[in-house]
């Protein structure tokens, strides 16, 4: 499989990138780890590939004065994995990204690219939703912010408009004492997740306070488990209240099924995984 013909331009600045994106049929090439497989299979046929991979200033991880984190869209997965500031302020991102592909893919794949590509099982999307991150989108007419929780519209479909570029991800300050966990079921290490759960929790004397759960595989896109969080507020970790509640939450879902995985499986597996992720976060 070889790519179909297209033009190529490397943007040296954000302005130039935005200008190039005005070409009909233009597509952004960041790390290439999602776009290149599509090109090689001829599932994407852009007229112009706009290489934004060397745009300056978009690959930083910086502290937000309010205690949160700002990550440039070109932050590479492997960079995120090793970054001490990210480890301190948003460890869930690291926990999620270690499930993404393998070393070579993580060397080039980008945070922005992953979020914009919006694979229905994307780990970083699920983590971003749990963290209530905000995505900054830039176009010639200005900049806007969209919550990760509102960004994913469908499989491979986001709120990103044509000619818009995702430039930054902002993670708000997380409450003190919060821990996180990210668990998934995938056929092999690094594969796309069949189901995945991101959990954030605080614990006081074996009691949960402030639980946030996001999951993928529950719906056509990664999603916040909106009811699950509040229903766990004040729940004890002892006994099986947690198992029952998560199990019921899973059973209420309408997950997609496909040739290898049934909706029934996903319902059950998500319930089980939610319990384990919350217990791991609380440990």
């Amino acid at each position, binding site marked *: 499989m070889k790519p179909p013909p297209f033009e190529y331009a490397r943007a040296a600045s954000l302005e130039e990138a935005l200008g190039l994106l005005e070409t009909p049929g233009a597509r952004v090439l960041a790390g290439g780890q999602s776009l290149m497989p599509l090109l090689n299979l001829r599932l994407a046929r852009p007229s112009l590939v706009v*290489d934004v991979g060397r745009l300056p200033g978009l690959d930083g991880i910086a502290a937000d004065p309010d205690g949160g984190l700002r990550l440039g869209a070109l932050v590479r997965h492997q960079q995120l994995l090793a970054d001490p500031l990210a480890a301190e302020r948003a460890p869930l991102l690291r926990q999620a990204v270690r499930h993404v592909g393998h070393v070579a893919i993580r060397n080039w794949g980008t945070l922005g690219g992953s979020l914009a590509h919006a694979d229905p099982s994307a780990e970083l999307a699920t983590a971003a939703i749990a963290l209530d991150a905000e995505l900054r989108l830039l176009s010639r007419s200005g900049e806007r912010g969209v919550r990760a929780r509102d960004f994913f519209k469908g499989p491979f479909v986001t709120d990103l408009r044509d000619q818009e570029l995702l430039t930054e991800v902002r993670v708000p300050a997380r409450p003190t004492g919060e821990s996180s966990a990210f668990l998934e079921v995938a056929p092999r290490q690094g594969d796309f997740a069949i189901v995945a759960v991101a959990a954030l929790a605080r614990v006081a004397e074996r009691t949960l306070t402030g639980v946030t759960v996001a999951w993928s595989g529950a719906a056509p896109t990664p999603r916040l488990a909106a009811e699950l969080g509040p229903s766990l507020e004040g729940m004890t970790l002892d006994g099986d209240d947690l198992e029952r509640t998560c199990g019921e939450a899973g059973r209420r879902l309408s997950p997609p099924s496909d040739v290898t995985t049934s909706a029934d499986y996903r319902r059950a597996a998500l319930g089980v995984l939610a319990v384990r992720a919350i217990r791991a976060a609380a440990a």
Partner: protein
Amino acid sequence: MRVRLTVNGVRNEVEVEPRRLLADVLRHRLGCHGVHLACEQGACGACSVKVDGRLTLSCLMLAAQADGAQITTIEGLAGADGTLHPVQRAFNEEHGLQCGFCTPGFILAVTDLLERIPDPEEETIRRELSGNLCRCTGYTNIVKAVRTASRLMREVNGGAGRSAPTVPSPTEGGGRAT
């Protein structure tokens, strides 16, 4: 378009269509037949090279993207006098290859791994190399080859190692659900 690629220390300039894969340019224009294509999807690691020191799947990179880069392929690992790199020696010593098709990609990945983690345990080896597929060996001897290569390289470096890596450990609340 003109693309400049320094491959194993040798500067090249090639005229390529934008869509040409780095792997194909390395193989068919620059004589690096040790770079192998097995899936063209980034799922097998056979095409692994180093681009500016970073382990890279050359099937998932346009030659144009690599303009100006320093590239290392399997052909660049042995010494000019033919002395094998310790990783190459270790693969032979431990029978870590059979048909050889995945081997250059593995060797590049192993050199990258040992630069980052000089003395990895089996579990780390398996996790870090999970992006390289082999159909012949069943992997047991590849793990041995990495352990032997690690020892050979630490001997060469006089036992000097690097500080512990900062990758999260498997027990850190993450990982596969078990």
